């Protein structure tokens, strides 16, 4: 991290990540509406994020996260989730209050405290994916080079596409190997559970893996 992002910038990033998981295209208007901020100031803030290389945005076009922006946003959301879980599950705070407080705390908490919190949660609270750091060493299946072997860690999607990916055998803990790329660069050919599966990079990007 070159420079620490201001809390409001972090909120913008998190909002873009949220919106991009449900909408095809994230526009300035959507972000402004979600955060209840004027379009003009949203525009300015997005300009700031563009300068930092976190997002790409052209006039009137959609806002998209860059690799760096996405990983930063995921870190912020992760902090948010851990804090919220702590407040709700351990401290029995009312969920609504917990949501608000987590929003405030996530910007100020130090990396050290956070790491300690995670290990605390792992020890005392039974949880699965939430207690893993998704962004640390995970790569997208779509980004792997041909010949790379990796273990599936998480499917970042929902609904029928997620179900389809899992049902074809791309479950968490499974080893996959990228066997090839189609002549025009997409889709890719993956060896999973002993058979060859082809999937578009768009779908493969939903599969987070750890290279072995």
């Amino acid at each position, binding site marked *: 991290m070159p420079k620490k992002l201001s809390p409001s910038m972090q909120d913008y990033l998190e909002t873009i990540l949220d919106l991009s998981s449900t909408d095809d295209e994230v526009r300035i208007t959507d972000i402004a509406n979600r955060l209840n901020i004027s379009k003009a100031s949203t525009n300015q803030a997005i300009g700031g994020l563009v300068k930092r290389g976190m997002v790409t945005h052209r006039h009137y076009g959609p806002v998209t996260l860059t690799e760096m922006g996405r990983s930063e946003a995921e870190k912020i959301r992760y902090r948010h989730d851990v804090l919220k879980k702590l407040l709700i599950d351990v401290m029995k705070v009312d969920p609504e209050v917990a949501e608000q407080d987590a929003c405030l705390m996530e910007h100020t908490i130090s990396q050290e405290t956070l790491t300690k919190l995670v290990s605390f949660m792992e020890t005392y609270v039974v949880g699965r994916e939430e207690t893993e750091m998704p962004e640390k060493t995970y790569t997208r299946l779509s980004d792997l080079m041909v010949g790379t072997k990796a273990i599936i860690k998480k499917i970042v999607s929902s609904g029928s596409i997620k179900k389809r990916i899992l049902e*074809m055998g791309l479950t968490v803990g499974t080893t996959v190997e990228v*066997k090839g790329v*189609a*002549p*025009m*660069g997409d*889709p890719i050919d993956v060896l999973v559970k002993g058979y*060859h599966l082809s999937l578009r990079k768009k779908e493969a990007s939903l599969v987070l893996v750890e290279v072995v």
Partner: protein
Amino acid sequence: MSIVLEKRPEREKRPAPITVAVAGNPNSGKTSIFNNLTGSHQQVGNWPGVTVTKKEGQLVMGSTKARIVDLPGIYSLGAYSEDEMVARDYILSGEPDVIIDVVDAGNIERNLYLTTQMLEAGGNIVIALNMLDEARRQNIHIDVRALADRLGIPVVPTVARLQQGMKELVEAVLEDAGQSKPKPFRIYYGELIESELEILEELVKTVPELTARLHPRYVAVKLLEDEDWLHKKIEALNGDTRERLMMAAGDSINRLRKHYGEDLDSALIEQRYSFIADLLKGVVTRSEDKKEKDTFTEVVDRVVLNRYLGIPIFLLVMFGMFQTTFTLGAPLSDMIETFFAWLGGWVAGGISSPLMSSLIVDAVIGGVGSVLVFVPPIFLLFLIISILEDSGYMARAAYIMDRFMQNLGLHGRSFIPLLIGFGCNVPAVMAARSLENKGDRLTTILIAPLMSCAARLPVYVLFVGIFFTAYQGLAVFSLYLLGIVLAIIAAHLFKKFLFRGEEAPFILEIPPYRIPTLKTALLHMWERGSQFLKKAGTIIFAAVVLVWAMSNLPWGVEYASQESLMGMMGSWLAPVFEPLGFGTWQAASALIFGLLAKEIVVGTLAVVYGAGEVGLAAAISSAYTPLSAFSFMVMVLVYSPCVATIAAIRRETDSRGWTAFAIGYSLVLGWVLALTVYQGGKLLGLG
């Protein structure tokens, strides 16, 4: 080979003692097993309400009678596609006494996923562990007895391609059918989920409507998965029960969400897979003495899917497919045409009344002839497609072309139908059947007629030869290109406005290469080809008779003259084509005739100008300018698909609305484009 196709599957008439369904993953050899069991006595139809092909037949082995139903190849009992819904509904209907689950031994882990789902649903299942020879070659060894013991169901090793294990399979099925109720099968989903399942199961047990055919536990699992079909079932229950079920399911899901978050669905799927992994421990052994040895398929694919060679090889295969179809098919078609011409002449000689003779020769014999002319190219094309499918190349073609088709918002599999369209639009429309997603399939069907088929070429050749002598190739090429560009634009618009949000994910298996069997390929060809003949044949025949009547009525007029109904209609329609540059009754009549088959436009022009093929050039060069000729060719390219294609569209979409839309949009598009060409050209001073 004797292939008997009965008109309609009529179960009620002769109820078979038992009903056996054949289920399994795509590429598991399911069709071969079905073909082996039924011989060639198959009936092909559609599942009610959907365009999924339904095949059934009678068991031909031994003395026992059984009805065999082929289910569509599926990966799970989810509800993503019509195929899966059909299979799931049938399995859950309780109609099949036994389900044969065809499992690819070389790919057993993923294949068993469907098995566990069917077992949970409560099916009476016999596994055909297929392609054991292939698995052995991959150094995969399966302890069949241990597998059967652990699953608690019969497992029969088979090699369907070589007819091995069929007798044993039938024996196991017949034995299993005698048993009353399948033993309860359960997958352990972990403590948290189990305790919720227990609550839901107790509740479900009190609702007889739900447990009549399904295991209560299966219903409970599906409640947690919040499946649509179950939701609909519950909605139909009476108020109190409905509320109680929905509340209980909601509560359970909420409690589990606290722990699993959004990953409840994944937890269930992962548990099924880890159940399978545990089950297979010690059952499947892979001897990996030569570490990471590449399979035959992988070696071939290094060339066939190569970055530089992949596309040239693909184009070569497609070119070969066309060449074979049309070089072998054209002479056969010519022979059929010649035969019917001879037959017509022979029959005409024996009938004294000219009207009767014309009715029989031109309408009836001509009608049958114009249907049968399609047989050689269509059957050949389907034969080659079947061979390519069974060998495993089609999946690779989709893989190679997917990136290109994504630009059109379409699926890799759409490429083949569109390419076939350059030969003939009819098989193109039918080949769209391989697309799972409804939006993709309809888009492909709707744009396929824009591919300039071989029948349109004679029209281009005639006009280009008269008006564009210096640029013949370029002029013809521009029309083909125009069709492609229009198809791209139309695909975009249809996907955007008609089939929004229906994009199918591209998650496809690439099966190993396999040697296709002639029997399966021929059965496939017959199945598709005969469907075309049955359905499209009647429409084409009716259209030929209609046009004959219109050309000869009122009685006594000269065939297809201005005084005939056809000529009158042509005169009446001519003003519509005035702004396009060809507002003559002759042009209008030719276009009407062209609906039968586009190449007929040429013959019609010869008749209506009262000229032979030689005098035709002179007649046309005085009736058209180069600009109006081009405008006319654009109209011939785009305006309405021919009746055979319309019949195919009607058949494949199973919808009058979409058929009407296909005709309507192309008529409007053709008219507007021809208008643009003619008026635009005039403005530029080309007229």
